[in-house]
């Protein structure tokens, strides 16, 4: 470790909580030049998301999408995972904190543990499996889940009887019963709090029979029930009698929007969506048709693609949506559960279900509250970290940042965005210490074996007794010696252990081995380790091949050892055959242009440009119009009431003053070329297309914003009493006397949103309406105010506004999509509004003096701009991110990022967070001088290319092109390495490195003892 810089700031950061938010923040910072200490109280990283079955709205498998992140964080040279630990105190100032940690004992040394699982096999104690929500059992020696990171066992001392069996069984000598809690101190420059949240415990309610009846489960328990790796292996069963349920009910808002029992007045933001998801997945799992019913108050599907998801559940999957708060769940003798409820029609109904899922909301845990107190972090009235809308990831203590569900209830993409934003915030004032504490590996030059015959060394692992206890490892070893090109074979107790790694290196050098085969566990977990080892003595990491003789052999064929031995031999023979054909792959690096282009001069664009500049890099800020500020110039206040205009003015002034920011007004983006790290963009004057300028940048952030829909409904623009939100905000700013004089004001929600034409929820309008209604009420307490709505979507802590509005006497009238309110303005300027009241079930009439239309939020039209960057927009015109859950700020094309309303309608705090997140993501690229490109990529042999365009047409990412050269070009930095073009090319002109036809066919040939032929 070297130190640089003259001040006393520290170039490392601590992240507390290793759920998806903590992982994202850690990866961002570690990849942008900071050493990260990632602390978690549990034995593995992964948090709540690791327990989920699928994720909405794509129904992706949660473990599939998170596990690459777990592996990356686990292997990162600059992330120090500190599991089983708690932050005791934080002393010092922003820039130079001292964090005191309590490291709880694990009783199994994770350095020595190879996760062979022998300790679990012999452990005589069973305990409840918390990971499976107590629906299943585990041993006292256990691993949280198979993909855990760090991948090592731990002992649950609460149930361990100290029998010593595991200590005897552990051939790695990793068991240490005498392990004690230790205390440690770490110096860090900033702290990111990402502790997440726990779920509300419904046993508080006796009316739901949760603690009395096994068929009443929480939503998280139901996730585990659905999970293929859960207690029922993905078979839909009810816990009571393991019968397949025919009818399942979901009850929403359990421990949310409830001040009666739960004392949680807020909305948990995610439950509506996860219940829809669970109902659809359950229907898919069910062998017989399943009746799924969701009982709800307001259906809050306010996120991107959520509204369509709900439509799909109702119309496609036949999920029943029943607007009713169920009071009581009554268990019946046969395991059934009787619900009594009053639907909108008003009658009292009874229905029996086989299972009830309680959609439990978020609740801040006692531990988190205690930690906040120890750190001196202010919590708000709901026990979430107190933040301002204009600095959404900053806590009350300088240098301490927050993200995820400890900030407020939210879904995964919002947590991930905030995590990146917190990473940007935490590192902003540490930029002079960037790369000061990070580690780099000094590696010898790679040897060139291209002229040499293959000389293969085979290392067969016993994995304790995991392999050796089943298959005849010495026989496999001796067999390996007989294979072509093998010059050395040996077996090891643990091939992955530190001493074996040293031994492997020694033998490679002694014997002149130039290709290495390890027959052990899975390449998924261990290939990078062995590749690093051989690289340390000058072998290219791609001169390595693995035979998976544990996970895919001895663990599967434990009862047939002879077959396991035979299969191990086959797998080794196949691996050796491929190894003989392996080639070194060059690690291509490209220089990086350390500047960022930001397109759009609204709040998101300004925050992004300032963020880049404050991180120490140049930002080009391009705005089409003649002024900065965008949509926010027309807004008065954030949802928490913070004034917007002074903030925007300050942003503009800061941006103009900052010498690292180059502002281009009345400018549009023309041609864009290049790839991650090196883009060249032509800017042209909006007034004179011939006036152009060329800039170079390493990344780009698109923050092209949106606008308010100009309604053609309800006589908008024809009657001065009918306004939109932006009109009303302007009237309030201008102290328009007409507002104060209004006796009756009506807000109509969903004007232009959630329609056939625009099937999305604009997310911000409910909150904006209620906020404006409260302002009107303040202006004139006598004013009668009505909000005519379809579902009130005051998600998260915004529910406070809804509660306050009701307390202030603002009246809410619900309408259905097919039965919207009608305005009649035939009678001169007098307005007559008719709406059917949902409680009275009859039309009511009023004569409002003021009608405010909650008009939809539309994306700005930027078709050609998006084409220049080759970024996709969805059918509504919003930009499409790389992954709806875990990459909400990235585009699929590397080096391009998005922020703000161009992504989806969102409130100003969310736009700010996303803009900061985009900065953090861009820092991964521009903070480095060079960037490494993946080596497993497609490459074209021009002599064989017929320029037929097959690759151009079949690449999922539109990477190949046929240019003036007359043959296909695949930019190495753009290729994702899937190999689709390779297997389609009619001229066999394209090869995928490390997975060539010859290498793949060699494996098949070897299985059938056919000598490799090309």
């Amino acid at each position, binding site marked *: 470790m070297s130190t640089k810089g003259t001040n006393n700031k520290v170039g490392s950061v601590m992240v507390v909580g290793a759920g998806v938010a903590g992982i994202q923040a850690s990866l961002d910072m570690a990849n942008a030049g900071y050493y990260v200490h990632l602390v978690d109280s549990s034995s593995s990283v992964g948090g709540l998301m690791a327990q989920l079955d699928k994720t909405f709205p794509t129904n992706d498998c*949660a473990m599939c999408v998170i596990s690459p992140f777990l592996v990356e964080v686990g292997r990162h040279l600059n992330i120090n995972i500190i599991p089983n630990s708690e932050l005791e105190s934080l002393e010092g100032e922003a820039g130079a904190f001292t964090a005191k940690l309590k490291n709880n004992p694990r009783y199994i040394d994770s350095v020595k543990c190879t996760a062979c699982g022998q300790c679990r096999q012999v452990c005589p104690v069973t305990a409840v499996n918390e990971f499976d929500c107590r629906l299943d059992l585990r041993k006292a020696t256990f691993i949280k889940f198979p993909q855990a990171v760090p991948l090592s066992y731990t002992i649950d001392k609460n149930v361990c009887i100290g029998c010593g069996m595991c200590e005897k069984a552990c051939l790695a000598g990793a068991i240490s019963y005498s392990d004690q809690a230790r205390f440690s101190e770490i110096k860090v420059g900033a702290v990111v709090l990402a502790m997440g949240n726990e779920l509300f415990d419904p046993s508080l309610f006796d009316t739901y029979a949760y603690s009395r009846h096994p068929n009443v489960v929480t939503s998280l328990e139901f996730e585990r029930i659905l999970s293929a790796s859960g207690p029922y292996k993905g078979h839909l069963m009810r816990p009571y009698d393991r019968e397949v349920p025919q009818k399942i009910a979901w009850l929403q808002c359990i421990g949310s929007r409830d001040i009666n029992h739960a004392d949680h007045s807020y909305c948990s933001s995610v439950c509506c969506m996860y219940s829809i998801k669970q109902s659809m997945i359950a229907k898919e799992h069910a062998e017989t048709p399943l009746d799924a019913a969701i009982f709800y108050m307001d259906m809050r599907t306010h996120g991107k693609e959520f509204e369509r998801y709900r439509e799909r559940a109702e119309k496609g999957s036949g999920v029943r949506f029943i607007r009713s708060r169920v009071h009581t769940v009554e268990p019946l003798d046969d395991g059934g559960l009787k619900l009594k409820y009053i639907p909108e029609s008003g009658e009292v109904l009874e229905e029996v279900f086989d299972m009830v899922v309680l959609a439990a909301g978020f609740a801040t845990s006692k531990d988190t509250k205690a930690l906040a107190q120890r750190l001196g972090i202010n919590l708000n009235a709901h026990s979430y970290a107190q933040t301002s809308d204009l600095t959404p990831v900053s806590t009350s203590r300088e240098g301490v940042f927050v993200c995820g569900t400890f900030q407020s209830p939210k879904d995964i993409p919002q947590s991930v965005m905030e995590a990146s934003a917190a990473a940007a915030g935490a590192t902003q004032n540490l930029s002079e210490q960037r790369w000061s504490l990070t580690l780099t590996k000094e590696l010898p030059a790679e040897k060139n074996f291209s002229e040499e015959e293959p000389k293969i060394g085979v290392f067969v692992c016993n994995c304790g007794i995991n392999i050796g206890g089943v298959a005849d490892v010495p026989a496999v070893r001796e067999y390996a010696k007989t294979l072509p090109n093998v010059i050395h074979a040996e077996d090891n107790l643990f091939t992955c252990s530190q001493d074996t790694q040293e031994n492997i290196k020694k033998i490679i050098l002694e014997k002149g081995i130039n290709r290495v085969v390890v027959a052990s566990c899975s390449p998924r977990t261990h290939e990078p380790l062995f590749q690093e080892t051989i690289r340390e003595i000058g072998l290219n990491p791609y001169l390595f091949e693995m035979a998976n003789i544990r996970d895919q052999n001895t663990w599967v064929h434990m009862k047939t050892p002879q077959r396991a031995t035979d299969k191990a031999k086959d797998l080794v023979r196949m691996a050796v055959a491929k190894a003989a054909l392996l080639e070194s792959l060059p690690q291509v690096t490209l220089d990086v242009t350390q500047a960022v282009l930001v397109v759009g001069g609204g709040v998101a664009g300004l925050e992004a440009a300032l963020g880049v500049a404050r991180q120490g890099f140049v930002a080009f800020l391009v705005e089409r119009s003649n002024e900065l500020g965008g949509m926010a110039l027309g807004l008065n206040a954030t949802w928490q009431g913070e004034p917007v205009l002074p903030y925007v003015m300050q942003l503009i002034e800061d941006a103009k003053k900052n010498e690292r920011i180059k502002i281009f007004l009345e400018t549009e983006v023309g041609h864009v070329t290049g790839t991650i790290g090196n883009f060249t963009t032509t800017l042209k004057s909006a007034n004179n297309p011939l006036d152009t300028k060329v800039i170079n940048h390493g990344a780009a952030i698109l923050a092209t914003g949106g606008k308010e829909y100009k309604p053609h409904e309800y006589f908008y623009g024809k009657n001065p009493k009918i306004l939109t939100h932006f009109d009303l905000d302007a009237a309030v700013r201008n102290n328009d006397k007409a507002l104060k004089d209004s006796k009756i004001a009506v807000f109509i929600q969903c004007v232009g949103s959630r329609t056939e034409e625009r099937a999305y929820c604009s997310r911000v309008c409910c909150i904006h309406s209620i906020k404006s209604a409260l302002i009107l009420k303040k202006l004139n307490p006598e004013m009668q105010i009505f909000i005519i709505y379809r579902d009130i979507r005051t998600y998260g802590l915004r529910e406070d506004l809804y509660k306050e509005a009701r307390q202030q006497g603002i009246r809410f009238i619900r309408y259905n999509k097919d039965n919207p309110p009608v305005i009649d303005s035939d009678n001169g300027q007098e307005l007559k509004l008719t709406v059917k009241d949902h409680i009275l079930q009859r039309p009511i009439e009023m004569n409002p003096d003021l009608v405010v239309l909650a008009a939809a939020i539309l994306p700005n039209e930027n078709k050609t701009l998006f084409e220049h960057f080759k970024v996709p927009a969805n059918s509504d015109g919003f930009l499409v991110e790389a992954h709806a859950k875990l990459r909400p700020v990235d585009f699929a094309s590397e080096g391009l990022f998005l922020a703000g309303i161009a992504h989806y309608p969102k409130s100003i705090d969310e736009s700010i967070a996303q803009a900061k997140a985009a900065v953090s993501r861009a820092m991964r690229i521009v903070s480095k001088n060079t960037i490494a490109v993946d080596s*497993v990529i497609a490459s074209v042999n021009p002599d064989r290319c017929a320029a037929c365009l097959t690759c151009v047409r079949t690449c999922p990412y539109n990477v190949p092109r046929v240019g003036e050269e007359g043959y296909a070009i695949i930019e190495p930095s753009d290729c994702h390495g*899937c190999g*689709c073009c390779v297997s389609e090319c009619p001229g066999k002109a394209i090869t995928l490195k490390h997975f060539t036809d010859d290498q793949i066919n060699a494996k098949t040939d070897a299985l059938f003892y056919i000598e490799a032929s090309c």
Partner: protein
Amino acid sequence: MNHDFEPQIIAFCCKYCAYAAADLAGSMRLNYPSNIKIIQVPCTGRVDIIHLLRAIEDGADGVYVAGCMEGDCHFVCGNIKTRKKVEYVKKTLSELGIEPERVEMFNLSSAMGPRFAEIANQMGERIRNLGPSPLNIKQAA
């Protein structure tokens, strides 16, 4: 049905889903026939018609490709493209008078360890019912 017959089956598995599911099946200690040999590919989109034909030509009694769930391909659509290639190979085998059921495409996610074992068992059973590849019968004779 020949009870002594042990079919040789090759499974091309996507690194992101089926291969991980196979590992999970192992860690759950789920059993399936030992003569199924997995070849890892970065995406099923990399699997070429010639790889499947080559396996049959070499003497495999069955071949299958296992990729991500449709719509969930790590590389957008590699699994959809390869499903079509599998169909092509089935057609080719039919033309040659070989049971097309010897070749198959499956989709599963990385969390579906039990499903992986189920597919392996199902495919093993299917091929055992079909008997040895006609290529192997003649050679033995």
